[in-house]
């Protein structure tokens, strides 16, 4: 079968930058993306931006999802985007979820975070957005 051309599964990194321990959302999203046929590299809690970018490059992911509930998103997300640029990988789309006030979300989108999901977002919506982002980056 290895010689047959077929579409490889989307690879997505799910990570939690910052110091809060609320990983339930990240895990549920990981599970939903798995059920949508994606390969989810689950990096878990308390990842530094450096670790996240390192993992994204080693794992050659199509997509990065960040979850944060500590309030440090304005410091950590731009740092991830900066490091991706520095590593010449600015094309890997980054999406995010967590407790992020609207005006911060607007600024983060301007900086390059491609989608931001707050509490109450349906899993179907997140999966759809992830699929679209992965397709566009492929």
């Amino acid at each position, binding site marked *: *079968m*290895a*010689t*047959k*051309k*077929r579409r*490889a*599964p989307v*690879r997505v990194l799910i990570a939690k930058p910052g110091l809060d321990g609320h990983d339930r959302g990240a895990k549920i999203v*990981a*599970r939903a*993306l*798995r*059920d*949508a*046929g*994606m*390969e*989810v*590299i*689950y*990096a*878990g*809690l308390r990842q*530094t931006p*450096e*670790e996240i*970018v*390192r*993992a994204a*490059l*080693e*794992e*050659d992911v199509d997509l990065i999802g960040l979850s944060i509930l500590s309030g440090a998103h304005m410091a950590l997300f731009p740092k991830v985007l900066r490091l991706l640029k520095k*590593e*010449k*990988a600015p094309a890997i789309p980054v999406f995010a979820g967590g407790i992020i006030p609207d005006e911060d979300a607007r600024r983060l989108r301007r900086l390059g975070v491609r989608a931001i999901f707050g509490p109450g977002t349906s899993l179907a919506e997140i999966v759809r957005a992830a699929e679209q982002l992965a397709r566009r980056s492929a």
Partner: protein
Amino acid sequence: MSRPRGPAEAIVGGDRRALARAITAVESGDPSADPLLRAIFPRTGRIPIVGLTGPLGVGKSSLVNLLVGQLRSAGKTVGVVAVDPSSPFSGGSVLGDRIRLERRADDDGVFFRSMASRGAVGGLAASTRDVARLLEAAGFDLVLVETVGSGQVDVTIREVATTRIVVLVPHLGDEVQTLKAGLFEIADVFCINKSDLPGSETAERHLAELASLGPGPDGWRARIVRTSAVQPFGLPELWKAVEAHEQFLAASPDHPAELRRRLSEEIVGRVRELVASEIAERLESDPDLRKLLDRVVARQLDPRSAADRLVPRGRA
């Protein structure tokens, strides 16, 4: 291509992005990976490929993390491939072995890659062996391969690793389990992890009785090491056991024949893959072959005879 060097040169030259992309191509069965694998093959087969296998939840990822730390302290560079299962339903996967990894984000002496099994049975993905070769070509001193949580018959790691660590925990069963075929037969080193818990001495005794029955067919007597990833203890002893086995292989007069057997198996496996995929495709697209299938469906021809017509046996 206007790039100054090809992917093989880039990988050998230490380009980690090129390595990561090449792994993706290899695991996706992308034909562009074939010339790359051809180019690097002569550079491979020289370093220890250490497999960690065992049932789910015994602590393989935690042990990999501790071994990586220990090996880095000793100045060794380490490539890691960790395999987790793909869903038979969605084809998706959650690859969670990376969460145990603790290392400096700027340490180029470690490269960690998660792989989904993508439908392969036996504990590894179909391309894990080639991914280990890419890591060797990239210059790592050794490669650790972590299998999916294995059952009794998930022993593909035997074909890929030079040294196999079978990781167990206390209370997995009585001594009769150690007599059964499969997983227990492929161990070069038994690691009883979570040995901070009660029952590890009993587990060690059962395995020691197994080992006392004599060496395996290759002449090696499996070593037994008790470890704990939480305390932690036993890790230096675990690595000493691996090194002892690698030294045994280097001195073993039978080892070249074993390597020859494995490569022969690999060729046969590849032929099987190529023939099967070509025929599967032709059964769909070639009108003559579709008619053949129609006759089997109508019970006018049996599947074995149809197969004989597809793959002539070369008999007179």
